């Protein structure tokens, strides 16, 4: 693997890993809220989270670019904080990825939380567990399959994104030149050997991801179920 290719792969994995971590940190409380709330705002929040599923990535990227640009409110804020501008930086890509992949993390988590019977949480309450305690010791463990699905989908979806990256990140080597963009460039330049290497790598990666997902989410084997 050439140095340039290696840089591209490393950057892609870094972006996906960091985005997934942030997605889980932000998406888990959001999914918990969506799963439990009776608020009138629930449909609105759920719709906002789901927007990236239906919007063309370029639309999302366009508005993020405007928001984060020098004259956008987010851009003004980041400059005021002394962080500079986000577009065409790795940080900008992370922010965009988190927004773009949010539904892939929130929705499986929300479904997993909704599937937890209320009586489990009430049982925990009558066993002296407070709200946070119940969340960490009962809700999260019981939502494990949802967590695994959310992490894998969040990671894989970030690796595979293209339109948003192009709009927000551009194609700066070592900063924003991730796998999908590099692949596009190779094809543009008729470098089919390099393109093949990246594309085949992606196919194998996707397959591995999905196999891992299905293995991890198999129902647990009951070791004690057989009589000894």
């Amino acid at each position, binding site marked *: 693997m050439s140095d340039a290719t290696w840089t591209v792969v490393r950057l892609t994995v870094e972006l996906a890993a960091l985005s997934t971590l942030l997605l889980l940190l932000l998406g888990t409380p959001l999914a918990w809220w969506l799963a439990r709330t009776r608020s009138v705002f629930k449909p609105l929040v759920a719709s906002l989270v789901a927007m990236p599923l239906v919007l063309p990535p370029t639309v999302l990227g366009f508005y993020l670019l405007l928001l984060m640009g020098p004259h956008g409110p987010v851009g003004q804020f980041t400059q005021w904080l002394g962080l500079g501008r986000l577009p065409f930086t790795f940080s900008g890509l992370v922010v965009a990825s988190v927004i773009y992949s949010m539904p892939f993390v929130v929705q499986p988590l929300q479904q997993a939380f909704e599937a937890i019977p209320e009586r489990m949480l009430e049982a*925990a309450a*009558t*066993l*002296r*567990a407070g709200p946070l*305690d119940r969340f960490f010791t009962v809700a999260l463990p019981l939502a494990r399959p949802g967590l695994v699905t959310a992490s894998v989908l969040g990671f894989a979806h970030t690796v595979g994104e293209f339109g948003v990256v192009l709009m927000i990140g551009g194609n700066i080597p070592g900063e924003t030149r991730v796998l999908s963009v590099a692949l596009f460039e190779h094809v543009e330049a008729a470098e089919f050997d390099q393109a093949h290497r990246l594309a085949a790598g992606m196919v194998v990666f996707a397959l591995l991801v999905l196999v891992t997902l299905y293995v991890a989410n198999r129902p647990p084997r009951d070791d004690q179920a057989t009589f000894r």
Partner: protein
Amino acid sequence: MIAARLRLQRRDFTLDVDLQLPGQGVTALFGPSGCGKTTLLRALAGLERAAGRVALGNAVWQDDAQRRFTPPHQRPLGYVIQEAALFPHLSVQANLDYGRKRAGAQQGRGDSAPAQAFALDAVVALLGIGALMDRRPATLSGGERQRVAIARALATAPRLLLMDEPLAALDAPRKAEILPYLERLHRALALPIVYVTHAMDEVARLADHLVLLEAGRVRAAGPLAELLARPDLPLARQDDAGVVLSARVDSHDRAYGLTRVAFDGGALWVGETGAAPGDTVRARVLARDVSVARQPPLESSVLNVLPVVLETLQADHSTALLRLRLGPPAQDGAVPTWLLARITRRSAEALALQPGDALFAQVKGVALM
């Protein structure tokens, strides 16, 4: 003493109760589906937010007048429901430890009155789950699961145990498997239990105190024996209407396979039981198994004939329900022992039965439990 004054508006009914429940023994909340017994239990636990006041002894758990509401996880209670609700991701041992550790930590902070300390070992032995400790809930039978759930609730050393139809999800054999454990619990622990059920046989076996609920309101509340013997309550119109006598084993007649049990106002012969003389037992006598005669029957196959006094007679179109007093009239507020008898109205009129008549009750069936 448990004091609860609770009001909760629901779409289909309004719960509106004002109850003083004894601080010991088993209190059964009894009534048809939808009468509000589960809602009442949940409100006692704080799982349901009703308006009013709840106190256990000196500890006030809820008092809207003082804007006080202790959330369920800070109330020293145990709660057992129909479906067990064991944590599927934890072993039996870890399920038991879940509440025990947290309750221990709460007490360590000294924020609750000293609870009765049940050694976990004793609870495990009492419920016979010692061999299940490493198992996962998914591998347990329904009866085992329910026993673990009860042990898990007791492991928090609660000051009050709330049980919501703990046997309703079990088939008859599983139910028969658990009932003895509940009886042992009742005898071994000085812990007040509030027990929701719509099964009369569970009430007859377990309850000391009965609260009859009807459409969200208390129809009657009092000691079990008193309420079961009241002909004015809907209980008396059910097919399995009858009284429960608190008796002690008197002697055995091994030659005939019989046991004599005695109670205030008389004694009965029953099928031989394993209980030793002096043990207390409960004898259930159904109204349909009791008939009356003016003269002591001379040549009869009925073993149990007791002199009684007819107190009240309530007749409908075809049947008459008699309340019979055993022994002398009660003095100083003491409660006499009663039997109920259901006979035909035709017989009642043929015998010209009047309150105050001295009669002989023939008891054809007694169930010991």
